[in-house]
């Protein structure tokens, strides 16, 4: 299930940025088509949308990322000009919302199950410093801040002004009836800025972002439910003899 898509709103993109969108979008679309695969199709769709965005000058305004509507401002988790890729994935975990919320709320736990994330350092004032792995040993880092939080229900964050990669996300914890545990829904939005095209884009968009998030959530579930990650790394086989 792919949930990557581009949304559009009123005209609010400046000319240099529109020009970059067209150039980068075209390249992305061409590359995606060349891949001849599902991720390739997604990629080319993203590229095509960027071209459209550049051509029209339309771009999303603050937009609700999760469960809430515009009227319910208290539960909004917003992305500033989130003209990027939106990914939404959910998993059901056999634990209480409180337990999963507490684990997630300590952002330094996130690299334990988010495989592209190298570290998160929690700072004062709801801020944190994130370091992600890019391709070929490169690293991308940014500062994030919590912009919305309801204990045991949701956490919303976004990169702060001037970050090298604009992104925002929210995670929602909802208890399910009948002893089925907690639904954990993650919504992420990446905004591909021109500045890090060489590094971050190919990492975040070049792979299938929805599949990445799904695998991250699978690892979260394993960690919370069992305390370990299922693996066969390091086991015996006839290949090494």
């Amino acid at each position, binding site marked *: 299930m792919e949930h990557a898509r581009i949304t559009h709103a009123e005209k609010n993109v400046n000319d240099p940025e529109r020009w970059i969108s067209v150039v980068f979008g075209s390249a992305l679309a061409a590359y995606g088509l060349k891949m001849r695969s599902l991720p390739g199709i997604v990629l080319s769709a993203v590229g095509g949308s960027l071209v459209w965005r550049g051509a029209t000058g339309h771009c999303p305004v603050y937009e609700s990322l999760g469960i809430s509507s515009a009227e319910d401002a208290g539960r909004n988790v917003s992305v500033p000009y989130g003209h990027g890729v939106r990914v939404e994935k959910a998993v*059901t975990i056999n634990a209480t919302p409180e337990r999963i919320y507490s684990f997630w709320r300590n952002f330094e736990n996130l690299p334990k199950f988010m495989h592209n994330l190298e570290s998160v350092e929690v700072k004062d004032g709801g801020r944190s410093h994130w370091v992600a792995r890019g391709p070929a040993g490169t690293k991308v880092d940014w500062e994030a801040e919590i912009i919305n939080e309801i204990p045991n229900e949701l956490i919303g964050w976004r990169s702060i002004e001037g970050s090298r990669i604009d992104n925002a996300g929210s995670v929602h914890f909802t208890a399910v009836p009948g002893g089925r545990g907690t639904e954990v829904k993650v919504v992420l939005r990446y905004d591909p800025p021109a500045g890090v095209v060489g590094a971050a884009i190919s990492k975040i968009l070049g792979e299938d972002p929805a599949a990445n998030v799904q695998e991250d959530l699978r690892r979260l579930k*394993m960690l919370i*439910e*069992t305390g370990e990650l299922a*693996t066969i790394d390091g*086991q*015996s*086989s*006839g290949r090494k003899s």
Partner: protein
Amino acid sequence: MKAVCWWGKGEVRVVEVPDPKIINPHDAIVRISLTAICGSDLHLYDGYVPTMMRGDVLGHEFMGEVVELGSEVKNIRLGDRVIVPFPIACGRCWFCQNQMTSCCDNTNPNAWMIEALTGYSGAGIYGYSHMYGGYAGGQAQYVRVPFADVNPLKIPVGVPDEKVLFLTDIFPTGYQAAEQCDIQPGDVVAVWGCGPVGLFAIASAWMLGAERVIAIDRFPERLRLAQSIKKTEILNYSEEEVFDELKDLTGGRGPDHCIDAVGMEAHGTHIDAVLDRVKQAMKLQFDRASVLRQAIHSCRKGGTVSIPGVYAGFIDKFPFGTAFGKGLTLKMGQTNVHKYAPQLLERIERGEIDPSFIITHRTTLDDAPEMYRTFRDKQEDCIKVVMRPQ
């Protein structure tokens, strides 16, 4: 240690490989005392299961002694004698906690491979391809057992290995097939396939109160073994018209429950990557789906068709209208071994059944390459091979 490794289509080798070690805190290492070749291992041997890699250690029916424990395993001890169920359960997910351990959410590190085909992934399985997790199997001297706090079942002193080994897979598999028929007094149960799973389905149907059990196969030695269980009636499908014969044998009603212990003997996987292999498997499926069609056709109105035989891909010309028209109940799935093994162990201890009756070949690991061939070709009336690794 010595291990039986898959080496490509039609080839297994006994290879010296590194001893397994504890990787996760809930792991244990078991020194294997007895292991078996399962009929489903033959699908690997014949190259029908994709995502096998040269050098993979085979085997998912094994037992032995606990010789090493991870830091988080508190409820079994070094020296315990255990059988290990073939699906790996985590014991903590919703499925495990509701006795559906074969549907475990957390033990397949390659879950995405199966999800690409079926939408969802179940439990990891020992020695059964990388789409089932890629776990090294138990046709070896030692094996790593994940979640050793919930998977191994301790065997009391004095019960011989041969009596309990099949609690790992085929006995619970046959039992689950019979149990999900919900057998009532007077019921007639027909079982297609008298291999190990079919034989245990027959034995279990009797245990669960069947009035009559009819066994269907074409190999005389298998029919003879089926006939040796209580008063099982036999039907050789190469000599008789199964549907007509079953109808005649049941006063025109048809069997109340039909068990397909044959299956498609084919597995699919990631469609894009292995299309050729899936096609190859499909060819086999067309062939073998005839058992399932016949079971649906033969079953009485409102009866149960229970399917322990393995299916994986798509079925051509499935008689769904017949199943609907007669209001049949279809039950199927991988075996929730953890649910059944303890109660079946009690039956063995009480002397109600000795599962070793199916064993035809007793040998050592070194003979594995020859035994795979013998078993596949059904030479020497081979029904079940067990091997001592030490």
